[in-house]
């Protein structure tokens, strides 16, 4: 459904992505593995329209989206959950969630989405009137994912959702990823926790200094000698 063909992305004179092609099939979890600075976050930002490619195309169900502004891409069903959560610390939990529903024009639908997020994350309902910044790191991550779900997306772009979280919370985050996938969400997942992301992923790409160097079934890549040595640290 999401098809990226030969994109090159530069920040000024520095090129972050060289001729990158990848595709995300409906209903799958696709993982991107790579070192820091390899271009993982740039890939997600290019898809959500925060940065635009210098060349190449991105299409969603056959329609080119690579020069659309971010809000329009959000309207089309791609939701970006950014690295570091980036919640609004002084807005309440429920206000944070409603911010995610800006593309939804029907208030009844917003309420329905809100209820389904509360169902997924009961803790957010419990704390709905609390300021976002007072939540723990794990709860803030749930809030960021919940906000991402409020635009009723088909595809979730998840950037480092387990970053800086306690082991028990990391387990909970990956549980949520699996649960959402079973509910039908398609996901593109960027993680520094390469092992866990290959474990949950169906398909995976290895990104090195802005180029795709390896791709395949995630369950195969997890045993690939290069991946083992360079990303799993074993």
């Amino acid at each position, binding site marked *: 459904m999401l098809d990226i063909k030969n994109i090159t992305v530069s920040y000024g004179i520095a090129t972050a992505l060289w001729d990158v092609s990848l595709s995300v099939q409906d209903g799958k979890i696709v993982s991107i593995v790579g070192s820091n*600075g390899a271009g993982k976050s740039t890939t997600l930002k290019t898809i959500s329209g925060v940065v635009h490619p210098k060349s190449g195309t991105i299409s969603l169900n056959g329609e080119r989206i690579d020069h659309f502004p971010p809000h329009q891409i959000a309207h089309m069903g791609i939701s970006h959950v950014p690295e570091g959560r980036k919640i609004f610390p002084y807005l309440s939990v429920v206000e944070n969630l409603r911010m995610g529903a800006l593309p939804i024009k029907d208030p009844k639908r917003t309420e329905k989405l809100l209820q389904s997020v509360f169902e997924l994350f009961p803790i957010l309902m419990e704390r709905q009137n609390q300021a976002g910044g007072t939540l723990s790191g*794990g709860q803030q991550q749930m809030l960021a994912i919940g906000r991402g779900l409020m635009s009723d997306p088909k595809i979730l772009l998840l950037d480092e959702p387990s970053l*800086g979280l306690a*082991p028990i919370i*990391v*387990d909970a985050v990956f549980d949520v990823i699996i649960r959402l996938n079973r509910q039908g969400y398609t996901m593109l997942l960027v993680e520094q926790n*390469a092992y866990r992301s290959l474990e949950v992923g169906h398909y995976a790409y290895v990104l090195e200094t802005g180029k795709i160097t390896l791709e395949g079934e995630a369950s195969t890549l997890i045993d690939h000698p290069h991946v083992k040595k360079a990303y799993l640290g074993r």
Partner: protein
Amino acid sequence: MILQSHDLVKSFGGVTAINHLSVTVEKGMVLGIIGPNGSGKTTFFNLVTGVYAPTSGHVTFDGKNITGLRPHRITEMGIGRTFQIPAPFSKMTVLENVMVSTFIRASSLKESRKMAWKILELMRLDEKAHTQVLNVTLEDRKRLELARALGTKPSLLLLDEVMSGLTPSEVKGAIELIRSLRTGDLTIIVVEHIMDVILSLCDRIAVLDYGEKIAEDVPDQIVNNKEVIRAYLGDRYSARH
């Protein structure tokens, strides 16, 4: 013993972030502090380094009561720290950033530069010395954060999640680097969520939950401690290891 916190309490309004915490750190050891997000680990560092004054209790360092002293005084006395969210001078070079730290021990520009170079070599950052910080990778920025802390010549080094965001292979390199600091008398306290880091570096581990110490022991005992598994590691962690 080099550091001791005695019955330390810190409240923010109605929230007790640190609740009667007593910790003793022996000279030359590496102590790990783990605990859920929001359990008080960074607050503890902020109390030790004078960012906050405690509500009650006290901290002694090297036999002196340092409770309530200003951060710069505590740095001068020999406690260095890194920050979870590093704030380097991004338009200055890597070398200049470390020189800002070494200046507190140097009497001239030349001397501070010489000291900074030594640290850059130790941190394998010498090739990046003249690069502006905004142009270095996350891995190098993490090392710079460590270099800036070392620049103040600490006898006690507090590391606050210096490895978060690194890939497992980068983490391995960083562990080696920190291990190489374990010569001489340097005492280190490590706050980290990556258990591989904690287990491979620490002599002892203290576990915080809601600002209280729920366990303190050697690594082997901690990973099997029921209370720690409940509050922090999770059942699956212990099943996997």
